[in-house]
């Protein structure tokens, strides 16, 4: 026996098999709602001391232009020991609160006003601020309902993402960068001999910063540190020398731009750091290599005479060695944690 009446004006029980008919209207205006999805299920169970669900058959229609719907009578399954247990009707139209024949949205209580014939479904506009996640979950339904409510499903997901957003991290703590070692330890005679194979004696001396225009320029570019060393070959010309300049800056890209311009025709790559520029001054017979390490704010320039560095790869190697001796700054993310700070573990 169906838990709903045959018609709205009688208490005589309806028939789970149907047929079903009714009209869908806007709650406020009373206007019919066309193309609303009507989704129905017939649930079967196996007879016995304990009810055991067996299967569920579904059907769907959309309301006509006058808001009416008709569900034809259901041909019950012809299986021994299996009975039709339950009928459920869902109605969904985007922009409205959904309707279930068994349960009310307002208080979750059982619905008592559904009828087999002449059923009147009054859909209320979806209230602003109401939870789409809660509504989609309340509605239930099979694949047809999920497809019809796809836009609302996306809204539900966004709503949950917003509600469950993790706490924002505390401000990023930049550890003060460690000071650079003296220039003469960054590029040594031993390095040059090792990379180039040269047996010449080299003397190291400070190399002043001639790239920066002056105090104003240094301030504008946020200069933190500079190191420069010139390895001069004793008794030989400039093409037997090597020089290294290193800057740590707030705006490293601007210095890179200046150096790129100074080098003229350059070959750009990524052998060292984020950007590597290589050039050859044929007049002075000098290889020049410039590298940018953007995150660390470091620009490095190495010059090597062609009589010392036979190929540009040697200049690149010398620059790599120097940069490996630079201590790089680290950052610590301190994330707000409800109870305990993050545990940091050491690899065995």
């Amino acid at each position, binding site marked *: 026996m169906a838990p709903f009446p045959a018609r709205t004006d009688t208490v005589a029980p309806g028939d789970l098999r149907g047929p079903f008919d009714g009209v869908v209207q806007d709650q406020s205006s009373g206007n019919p709602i066309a193309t609303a999805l009507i989704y129905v*299920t017939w649930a079967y169970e196996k007879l*016995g*001391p*304990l*009810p*055991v*669900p067996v*299967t*569920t*058959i*579904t*059907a*769907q*229609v*959309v309301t006509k232009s006058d808001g009416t719907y*008709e*569900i*034809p009578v*259901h041909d019950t399954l012809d299986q021994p020991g299996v009975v039709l247990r*339950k009928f*459920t009707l869902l109605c969904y139209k985007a922009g409205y609160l959904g309707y*279930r024949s*068994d*349960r*009310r949205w307002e208080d*979750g*209580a*059982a619905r008592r006003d559904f009828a087999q014939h002449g059923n009147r479904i009054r859909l209320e506009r979806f209230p602003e601020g109401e939870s789409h*996640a809660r509504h989609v*979950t*309340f*509605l*239930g*339904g*099979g*694949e047809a309902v*999920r497809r019809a409510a796809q836009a609302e*499903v*996306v809204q*539900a*997901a966004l709503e*949950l*993402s917003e509600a*469950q957003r*993790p706490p924002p991290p505390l401000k990023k703590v930049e550890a003060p960068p460690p000071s650079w070692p003296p220039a003469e330890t960054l590029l040594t005679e031993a390095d040059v001999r090792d990379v180039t194979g040269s047996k010449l004696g080299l003397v190291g001396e400070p190399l002043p910063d001639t790239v920066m225009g002056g105090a104003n320029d240094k301030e504008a570019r946020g200069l933190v540190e500079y190191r420069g060393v010139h390895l001069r070959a004793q008794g030989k010309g400039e093409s037997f020398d090597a020089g290294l300049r290193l800057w740590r800056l707030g705006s490293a890209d601007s210095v890179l731009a200046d150096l790129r311009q100074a080098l003229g025709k350059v070959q750009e790559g*990524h*052998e*060292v*750091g984020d950007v590597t520029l290589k050039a050859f001054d044929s007049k002075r017979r000098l290889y020049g290599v410039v590298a940018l390490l953007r995150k660390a704010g470091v620009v490095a320039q190495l010059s090597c005479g062609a009589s010392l560095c036979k190929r540009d790869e040697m200049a690149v190697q010398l620059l790599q060695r120097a940069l*490996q001796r630079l201590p790089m700054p680290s950052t610590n*993310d301190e*994330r707000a944690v409800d*109870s305990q700070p*993050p*545990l*940091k*573990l*050491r*690899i*065995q």
Partner: protein
Amino acid sequence: MRTRASLALLGGVLLLKVSAAMAYEAHTTLAGLTERAALGSQLHRRLVERFHCSLGLFEPLQLHFPQISDPVLARGLRARLLTLDPAEGYAPAGEAWLKASTRTTPRGSARAPEGAGGEFMRQSALGWLAAGSVLEEMPIARSVHHFFYPATGTGLQRPPGQTSTNASVHAFRAGIASARELLTGAAVDGTGMPAPQWLLDPHNELGLASFQRAYREAVLGETPAARQTALVQVLLSTGAMLAVLEQMGDPIHVRGDLERSLIQEGGLYQRWVSQRYGRAGVPAPASAGGMVRHLSDLFHDTAGNGLAQLTAQRAYPAQEGMYAASAAALLPLTGQYAAKAVDLLFRGMLTLRVQTATDGSQRLMVTMAETTAGPGTIVVVGEDRQGRRQKLAEAQVTGEATDEPLAQLPLDRTAFSRGELRRLAVLYTCTDKNGEPLLLSAEMALQKESDPD
């Protein structure tokens, strides 16, 4: 006046029936509790963060039956899923139904259930979770393990005077056991494991061990189909474990005077709850509160704050006038504990960052937050443009606190160096400082997902 023997027989039958018909109904109350708990937990965020499910709880996920290694398990799972009612929102749709071009059937209803046909079924993550809660009560015999008497720490027990043979025969007559089960001795014998122990039982294919196995596969599985199937199994296991816990909010499941309660009441309260709230009307959980240390603490703890203990402390709703007040108190409390269980199973967060050294070498930096951990293993896998994953690195991690990240793993595998990989995923398997198993994972994109192949 009933004799003791007949009382014992009656109690035996009622004992066996209680879990099926007089407990919180799985397809309404338990499913509704699970859904509300999930919405109130962090699971949506975890699905987004850990598994790249952009819709979180509403992400459609496919269960590919050929990916389930045990064909018997796969067949049984499909059969049970086909019995679910789509009206409740947790019945998955089958491949054949999804591919059919015509949906509207104005002249008559379809003849086959929506889940039938094809090699996979599809449902939202939340739907799979709720389905798991319903499946935990299928078959009915599983529910003998949903009892726990906090005063004694025991599960379902036979009433005095009833033998296991008697109980098995009555189970057969009650339709709870089949003739085959009766003949082979596998029929319900009126006893069950304590509910917390059932979650840990290796024979429980929807328990904690299954959850852990599936979780690993959901991260490390080679193909997208394998990983998505495993993720569905994670959710089914989670939903099933929640159902066992939620039954601790049912007074019948936590009382030592079961027989007296049954004979006097016969589970009318539980039926009233199902009729009053259904699935869609189950009230929201109470606010979550703090995290527990152990999964078992949700059932019982030394302070008496386990759900079974709190439920048992309440006066049993012996009359209809008490049902509304009991439900108003117990359902939100049960939902709260279910939400805590979800947050415990999915606790913690990993963050990933690829760092490039000055010499061009690359390392994966793994950091952890929101929880504490102990010794364990980190596995890194790379995913290519076809979605296939391969292991890139593995490291053992100790529980020493240092200033370093959780792990720094070199990424010098050829595929990674050549830029052929689209994503990295990390699985961290360990036990936390409370001795509780912990699985954490994270993914990161290495290039735009929309980059052409």
